[in-house]
Structure formats: C-alpha cells, structure tokens
C-alpha cells in the first residue's frame, strides 16, 4: 500500500492549490483525478477571470489551470490522471482505479476536492438527445473542438449560462435566446451585456415549455411564468434549435465525504449537501478536509484559496509547519478570501434583491431584465464620463470583486481604490493615451475607448473583440447597440492584436457621432 502525507481527490482549482501549499512545506502529496486532463473545470474556462492580481485576475481559466499544474509538478506533487477514486475507507484508506488496476493508498491527511455537479430541470422532452448540460457544451467545444450544435437555446442566466452562451458564439454556434425562470439575470451584468450586445435576446421569467423532436431536438418552446411558476397562456415563443443547453446551477458533489463518514448538512446557503467543515476546511473526521465547490458552491477563485488554506492547515497538523507560521499564513489567505466574498454576488447575498450599489447608485433594472444597461441608465455610473478626447468608458455597474483595470492603466486614468468591489471611476485629471490596455484587461469586456467627436461628424469606439474571423481595417459593417440591435453603419478603422492582450482583439470602429454612446458592437457584413 502506498502512503502519503496528503491524498487529494480532484485536480481542480482547490485540489491543485492545496497540493502546492502542502508540497511547499515538504509534504508528500498525491492528487487523483478521474479525468484525462487536470484542472477540473478550469480547463474549460476560456474567459478571463475576475478578482485581483493575486487571484489570477484577467488570466483565462485554462491558463490558471496550466500555471497551477506546472507549479504543483515543480514541487514534486504526483498528479495521477484517469484515476477514479472508488472509495474512502476507515483509517484514511483510499482505493483508486488507475487504468485497469486498483491501488490502495493511505494518507495521514485527505483532501476531498471533488467539485460540483450540474443541476437539471425537467420539461417535456428533457431526455431527448440535444438537451445537454452547459458543462457538456463546454467540454465538447473547449476540450474536444466539437460544436455542440448549430442553433442553441440556453436556459439559465447565472454566470455559467452567460459565460457558456458567449463561448458557444465564440465557437461558432448561434445562440437564439437565453431564458431563465427567475425574474432577474442571476450572473454578472458584464457577462450578460457581452452576450446581449451580440444580439441574443434575454427572456427572464421564462422557462421551457417543451423540447420538440422525435429522435433529437428540433425545436423548443419557452413561455412566461406567473408568480406560481405556471406558464402564462399565450406567452409561448417557439425557436427552431438543435440544442438546448441547461445551466441551472451546481450542487456540491459530496458523496465521497459522506462515505468517509464526515458529518454532513443540507445547507441551502452552500447550494446543497455538504460536509460540515471548520475554518480550515477540516471535516468532522480528523485529518479529512474538504475544499472548493464540494463544501459549498462558489467561484473558482474562492476554491483556490480554500484549497490553499486546507493545504497549510494540513501542514500544521502533520508538523511540517509551526502553528505560529501556519496561523499567519492562513490569516493572509483568509483575508484574501474575505475580499472575494464581497460585493453583490457574495455567497451571503444569495437570494437577496439589491437595489443600489455600494456607492448608492440605483442599479440598472434593464440589465437585470434584459441583460444590458439602457442608454439612459449607463450615464449614472462613475465609469461613464464624457470628455473631448479619447477616454475610457467603463460600463461596469455592479459591485464585484475585480480590479485589473486599475492596474492596467499606466496613466492612472482608472480608479477603484483599495476596496476591490468598488465601481471603477475615471480620473478627469489623468490623460488617456488610447493604449487599450484597460479594454483588454477587463474580464467583463465592459470597457470601451470612445472618441466622441472626431471633428468630422463621426466618433470612434474601440471595443474588445474575441470572435473569428477578425474584421479587417477598412471593412464596413453594422454597429450594434447594447441590446444587439443594428443602429448604424460602421467602418473598421483599426484592429489591434498583441500578445499582452491575450486574444482579446481591440477593434476600433467609426460611427456617426450621435452613436458614440450607443454603438457597442460590430457586426460583419451588409451595412444597414
């Protein structure tokens, strides 16, 4: 039987982070993961992450996965893939199926970091081929390079639904609509806005009436729900689709904790059945820890810190780190975690309705209902200002823990301050050079460079563009509004790509100046 100081189940953000911290202290660590690729869901995340620099902000998920994996390997962590943990047995014995063999291993500590599984909803036709989980769509397109479908309806406007909708479009699918039974968009407004401006309609208070098709999905009907979640007659809308994507939340995948004998609780604040853990992630079974989504659904950035805390705590427990050192380091991590757990989307805010930002600004209702901020509403946010020359317009209207834009601007045009969830504001004294670093750095794709008046009756708008084929300079097309509606003709006057932008191309388009604060996306092809 093999023996380790720490056995980690799950090579996702929590598991790898814990492995790094434990191995740094000299612990012998193994990480088992049932997938062929490590990184958990990180490897399917191709958007730039939120947070602060130390939380890997503005780095794409899969790249964070690569970084964590490289760091863990350098520290001598054994990462075993295609390794299915069969069970955790008494005395911290783990049995693992690796290839065609079963191996037994004992750990002085065990970390369970098995992540989450997707929730599902039922409707007539939900078992038809073509109805898939949002995670399945991500797996197909981002891991295997296969299109999940051609025309897709997304159910769910949480971050998963929003992010995957955008990814579907990046992969080349048409997203016909997003629907959500809830009356408000559940995910980050900036994620919604980047989908909406591509022309995808949002149907809030709508759910799927039925999926149609004999052997596979050929269409879907959605309908508006009343206060009792019943479909309002006559509100049905039909779409021809070949794929219905379900993104209706995640649940902790905690069976292994239960099997290991950990005390469990069904905690709605943690989105499901979770092990009871202390502040270090230790369960009721001494030496068995849980971190990441398995102990409560949160963002990957929180999972990484929870993993780090568990790794450090285990090092203290096994005498690889003094209690004093361990406590100091854990306090640092806790502070960072505290930072991430602030703002409108913090775990403690689940289910609460927010009417204004921390700054006291009424939040955009249009954003919550339709996925985009209206032309009138956007003016009241501190990132949106007007000046004669080129200047950043930051359509960031919700308090989320994220601040890369502040660091991105070398001329200090953008201010967030020390409170990471504050809305960015423009410093009127600082001079914008139009470098575009802020546009590329904004994980929410919410920053635009605008020259409101070029002097010839036109305005120039620089926007983030992550689609193929990339429009060429001189190309004429259509400018789309925040809602994704064609508003005017537009000409591409510049396309900038740079390694530092990390695949976020900066597209500059020229529009009539009255559309300077209205046009927010460029569509190739026939001008209106």
């Amino acid at each position, binding site marked *: 039987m093999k023996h380790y100081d720490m056995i980690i189940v799950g090579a996702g953000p929590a598991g790898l982070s814990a492995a790094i911290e434990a191995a740094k202290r000299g612990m012998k660590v193994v990480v088992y993961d049932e997938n062929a690729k490590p990184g958990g869901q990180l490897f399917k995340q191709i958007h730039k992450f939120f947070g602060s620099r130390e939380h890997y902000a503005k780095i794409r998920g899969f790249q964070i996965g690569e970084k964590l994996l490289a760091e863990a390997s350098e520290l001598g962590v054994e990462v075993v893939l295609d390794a299915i943990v069969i*069970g955790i047995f008494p005395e911290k014995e783990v049995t693992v199926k690796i290839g065609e063999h079963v191996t037994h291993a004992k750990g002085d500590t065990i970390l369970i970091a098995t992540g989450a599984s997707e929730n599902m909803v*039922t409707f*007539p036709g939900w078992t038809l081929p073509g109805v898939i989980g949002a995670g399945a769509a991500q797996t197909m397109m981002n891991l295997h390079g296969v299109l999940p479908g051609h025309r897709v309806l997304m159910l769910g406007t949480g971050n998963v639904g929003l992010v995957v909708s955008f990814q579907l479009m990046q992969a080349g699918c048409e997203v016909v609509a997003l629907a959500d039974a809830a009356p408000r968009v559940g995910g980050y407004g900036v994620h919604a806005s980047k989908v909406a401006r591509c022309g995808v309609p949002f149907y809030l208070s709508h759910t799927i009436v039925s999926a149609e098709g004999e052997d596979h999905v050929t269409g879907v009907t959605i309908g508006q729900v009343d206060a009792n979640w019943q479909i309002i007659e006559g509100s049905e809308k039909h779409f021809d689709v070949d794929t219905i994507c379900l993104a209706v939340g995640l649940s902790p995948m905690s069976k292994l904790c*239960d*099997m290991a004998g950990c005390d469990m609780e*069904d905690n*709605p604040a943690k989105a499901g059945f979770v092990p009871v853990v202390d502040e270090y992630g230790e369960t009721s079974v001494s030496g068995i820890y849980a971190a990441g989504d398995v102990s409560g659904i949160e963002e990957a950035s929180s999972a990484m810190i929870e993993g780090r805390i568990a790794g450090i705590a285990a090092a203290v427990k096994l005498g690889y780190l003094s209690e004093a050192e361990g406590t100091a380091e854990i306090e640092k991590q806790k502070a960072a975690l505290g930072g991430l757990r602030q703002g409108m989307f913090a775990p403690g805010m689940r289910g609460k309705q927010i009417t204004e930002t921390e700054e006291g600004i009424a939040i955009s209702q249009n954003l919550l209902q339709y996925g985009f901020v209206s032309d009138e509403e956007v003016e009241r946010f501190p990132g949106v200002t007007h000046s004669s020359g080129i200047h950043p317009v930051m359509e960031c209207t919700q308090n989320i823990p994220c601040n890369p834009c502040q660091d991105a601007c070398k001329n200090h045009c953008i201010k967030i301050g020390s409170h990471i969830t504050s809305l960015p504001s423009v410093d009127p004294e600082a001079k914008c050079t139009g470098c575009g670093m802020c546009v590329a750095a904004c994980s929410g794709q919410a920053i635009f460079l605008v020259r409101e008046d070029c002097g010839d009756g036109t305005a120039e708008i620089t926007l983030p563009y992550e689609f193929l084929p990339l429009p060429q300079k001189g190309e004429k097309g259509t400018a789309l509004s925040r809602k994704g509606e064609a508003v005017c003709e537009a000409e591409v006057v510049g396309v900038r790509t740079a390694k530092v932008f990390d695949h976020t191309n900066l597209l500059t388009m020229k529009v009539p100046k009255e559309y300077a604060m209205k046009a927010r996306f460029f569509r190739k092809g026939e001008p209106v």
Partner: protein
Amino acid sequence: MNDRNRELKPFVEAPDDDMIICRCEEITKGEIRRAVHDGMFTLTEIRRYLRTGMGLCQGQTCTKLVKSIVARELGVKPNALGSATGRAPMRPIEMQILAKDKGE
C-alpha cells in the same frame, strides 16, 4: 420522531406525472408522488422502493429533483430530507478489475 400516519394532502393526479425524473431507471414524477402517499417518506425509502438513483449513474442527476418532489409532497423544505448514503464504488467498476485487487 417521524409519524408515518400524519396527514398529507390528498393525492391528486397532475398533468406532468408522466415526466421522467430518474433518467437511468425511468421513474416518473407520478410514481414518486404516489410512493410518498404510500408511506415512503425518506429519500432512502423512495430509492429502495422505486430504484430512483440506483441505476448506472447512481443518482448523479436525479437526486436533487427527487428530493424536491418528495419535499413538496410532504409539505417540508427539501433540506429537511437529508440525503441517501454515498457508497463505493463512486463510479462503476468492472468485476475483473476489482478481482485483480489484492489490497496493495
């Protein structure tokens, strides 16, 4: 103390009773609702009586769905129902692979 004689609202057939809930074992919402009225008040009892969550996937998809149906039928919150026990193996394993295992 869980009194199995407590009054439930009378069973009324619903239009979506034929909706498949457990995809593996093809158990419908109506079957689950009826089982509750037949005294199956816990998720474990439902599972033993109907096989929900006992198919190939071992409840990966339906656990939460079953829970909400049972809770609604009993008039309790879903989180009051607890959960069915996690058991090895976490994923299906062929006998011939297990057979090679000598505990090493």
